[in-house]
């Protein structure tokens, strides 16, 4: 027969019918095959034009259909298989990836689709040439209608519900859906059959034969305990780096030396969420796939995506790769974490997903593999958002972050020019500082994060103390810039302005650090207070390193400084001492030895 004969065209229609049916079924059952967003993809492929139904990219499985489905008369059996975890959940992604032998997976066929072109044997009465010049056209039109109804039917059956669960949630689940396409399959056991219902579509006329489509399905899936996977309780870390709970009152010098080696890894260790490498993420559905192979019928035509490595989109391989890929991505990412605390592993890529899970329930799971890459930006945005408003308020600039003033001694002279500059123009510089601070914030997100780390969780080591010499200069920058601290010496400011600064500062302190939710933030501020506190006695010799620095930088500071304290009464001072003692105790209890090491010699 000529290739363009009726039967040839009919064969083509039947062949495309099989492909389209498979596409429709897989699209509505297998989450990983689901396209990103079909509505965004406006182009119409050649495969879309068949039967006037645009479905988007065909899964790679379909490309190989012709490979095994050689005979059009062979039935196409599509098994939709529910795979469930059998063992206790491991919190190690490594275990997941390695396909730990301890894991078992239960496979249950929840749907079996049968698509078959039935043709009468040759030699029977009905011949294709009988008034059916356009029979393939009729078949084509009827197939169009049928495939519309198949499209809807797949969404009405129970399995669609769990497919929706898997594909719309970024949470991991304790189950997965895989498929198997073959030309024959093991019949169901009696028990299984009793649990299933059958729906037969009206056969589609495809002279000389007919197209039969039927589905055997489980009407109830509630017996399977299909739940989101909770590998760990979603812990809300209130004082994570960059959170609003931490004191956002940080100051960043404009001349940041760019020291990068901060002790964030130790913060990571303390973090309950642990290192991201060991933390399970939302790709659990594919982990068991290497295990799943055991009881399939040994057939050369069995078409399991877990065995096929033809293409990366194959679900198990994709998931396996996705398991690995984010980790690799995260490796350099982790290094960056040392530079950019807002992205510290304690706020690992999955954490925001975790925390924001309630906000985005509809987040497609298929996009889970991109999550590690895309998540950091919101955090950084968040952190800068929290930080910058404070710097727009000059009065809040008066509360600098914690810095060990004792270490300023040696290098203060190096920074004195900048310090001088800043000190001499307090008012103007505040605005500059605000903008500089903001600028610094925007340019150096890691700085902001670092300082938030300073002020946040007290059980993490204070960053400043493990710095190298270059860090000290960095601190000097900070110290030099906190000219507005009332305890600071300033030869330019008149005493009353200093007093007002003090009052402002104290008010700010009370309103901010005391009023803030985070105790740790308050602790950081209070530590700073302790360190920068003026002596109770108005004696320049009793000044700490700060006064020495003041002397180095400015002459005649002592008088100004002492003049600053004139209006204070002893009772005020005693009260302050009491509060400082309390703070110190608090600090000691919280921070342990670190504070001790930071005491000025």
């Amino acid at each position: 027969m000529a290739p363009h004969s009726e039967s040839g065209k009919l064969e083509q229609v039947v062949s495309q019918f099989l492909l389209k049916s498979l596409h429709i079924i897989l699209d509505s059952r297998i989450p990983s095959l689901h396209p990103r967003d079909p509505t965004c993809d406006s182009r119409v492929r050649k495969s879309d034009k068949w039967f006037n139904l645009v479905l988007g990219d065909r899964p790679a499985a379909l490309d190989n259909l012709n490979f095994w489905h050689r005979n059009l008369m062979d039935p196409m059996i599509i098994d939709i298989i529910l795979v469930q975890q059998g063992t206790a959940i491991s919190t190690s992604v490594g275990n997941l990836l390695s396909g730990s032998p301890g894991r078992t997976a239960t496979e249950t066929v929840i749907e079996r689709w049968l698509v078959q072109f039935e043709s009468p044997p040759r030699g029977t009465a009905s011949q294709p040439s009988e008034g059916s010049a356009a029979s393939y056209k009729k078949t084509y039109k009827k197939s169009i209608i049928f495939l519309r109804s198949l499209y809807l039917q797949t969404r009405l059956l129970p399995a669609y519900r769990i497919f929706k669960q898997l594909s719309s949630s970024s949470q991991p689940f304790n189950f997965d859906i895989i498929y198997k396409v073959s030309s024959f399959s093991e019949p169901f056991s009696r028990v299984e059959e009793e649990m299933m219902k059958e729906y037969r579509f009206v056969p589609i006329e495809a002279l000389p034969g007919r197209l039969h489509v039927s589905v055997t399905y489980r009407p109830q899936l509630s017996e399977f305990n299909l739940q989101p996977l909770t590998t760990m309780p979603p812990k809300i870390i209130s004082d994570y780096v960059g959170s609003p709970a931490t004191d956002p009152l940080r100051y960043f010098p404009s001349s940041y030396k760019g020291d990068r080696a901060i002790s964030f890894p130790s913060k990571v260790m303390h973090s309950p969420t642990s290192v991201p490498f060991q933390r399970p993420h939302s790709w659990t559905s594919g982990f068991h796939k290497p295990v799943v192979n055991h009881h399939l019928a040994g057939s050369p035509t069995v078409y399991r995506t877990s065995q096929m490595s033809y293409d990366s989109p194959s679900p198990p391989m994709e998931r396996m790769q996705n398991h690995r890929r984010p980790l690799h991505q995260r490796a350099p990412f982790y290094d960056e974490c040392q530079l950019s605390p807002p992205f510290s592993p304690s706020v690992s890529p999955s954490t925001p997903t975790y925390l924001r899970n309630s906000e985005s329930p509809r987040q497609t799971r298929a996009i889970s593999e991109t999550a590690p890459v895309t998540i950091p930006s919101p955090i950084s945005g968040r952190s800068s958002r929290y930080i910058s408003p404070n710097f727009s308020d000059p009065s809040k600039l008066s509360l600098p972050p914690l810095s060990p003033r004792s270490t300023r001694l040696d290098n203060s002279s190096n920074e004195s020019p900048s310090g001088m500059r800043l000190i001499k123009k307090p008012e103007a510089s505040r605005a500059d500082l605000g903008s500089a601070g903001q600028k610094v914030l925007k340019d150096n997100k890691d700085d902001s994060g670092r300082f938030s780390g300073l002020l946040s969780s007290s059980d993490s080591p204070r960053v400043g103390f493990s710095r190298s010499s270059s860090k000290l200069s960095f601190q000097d920058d900070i110290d030099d810039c906190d000219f507005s601290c009332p305890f600071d010496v300033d030869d330019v400011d008149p005493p009353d302005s200093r007093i007002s600064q003090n009052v402002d500062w104290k008010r700010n302190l009370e309103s901010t650090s005391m009023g803030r939710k985070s105790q740790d933030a308050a602790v950081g501020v209070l530590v700073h207070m302790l360190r920068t506190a003026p002596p109770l006695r108005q004696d320049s010799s009793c000044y700490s390193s700060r006064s020495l620095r003041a002397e180095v930088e400015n002459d005649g500071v002592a008088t100004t400084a002492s003049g600053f304290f004139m209006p204070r009464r002893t009772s005020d001072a005693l009260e302050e001492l009491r509060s400082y003692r309390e703070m110190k105790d608090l600090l000691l209890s919280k921070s342990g030895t670190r504070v001790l090491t930071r005491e000025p010699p």
Partner: protein
Amino acid sequence: MNCEVCQLKELEVEHFEIREVLRCILHTIVFHRALGLVRPKVIDLELFDITYVQCGDGELEKKIDEKIEQFISWVEKHPNKKSQVCISFYEVKNKHPSWFTNKTERLYWEQWYINLNVSQQQKVHSGKSHPSKIVVDPGDSLEERSARRAALETSLREVLFQIIKFVNEKKDHVPPISDGVVYFPYEVTIPSSSDSAFGMDMIKRMLQTGGHPTMLS
């Protein structure tokens, strides 16, 4: 050509459920009669755990919504009545003036009757019904409401299966698909202000189809 008629199973709906139910059914029917190139759009109902499919045609969506709004307005004026929404597909035949109408002749080849029994239990409210406004009658208990809702969901699902069955059983009467046309011309008829006019519409349609409509139970 015969006009195939399908009477869908009657649904007991509450006022606030009308919109979703009608949208679901009407779009499902049109989707099966949109035989041109279609990019299906899957919609999850809010009130029920049901997913249906639309053609993805914005114009169509707008027209259907308009009709639904008209129907809801009618229901508000005629509470506690069994009503029908009819969607008909027709072919445009030769334009020739007839004694009945001098417009183009429509040859209806398929009709679907959506039977609704709207239980008007809400209090009197303003004429406009906001889509998001849900009026709850405090008289009903929670169990009754949820039982009714579950029953409606089951019935709605049955209606959708009924549509699938019908479209697969009856295919021969469907006219050929024209190039460039996505869906067949259709008409949604809602009960008009007076019952008699509705009846006239029915008679008019019956005359136009030129045959006794086959009723499917």
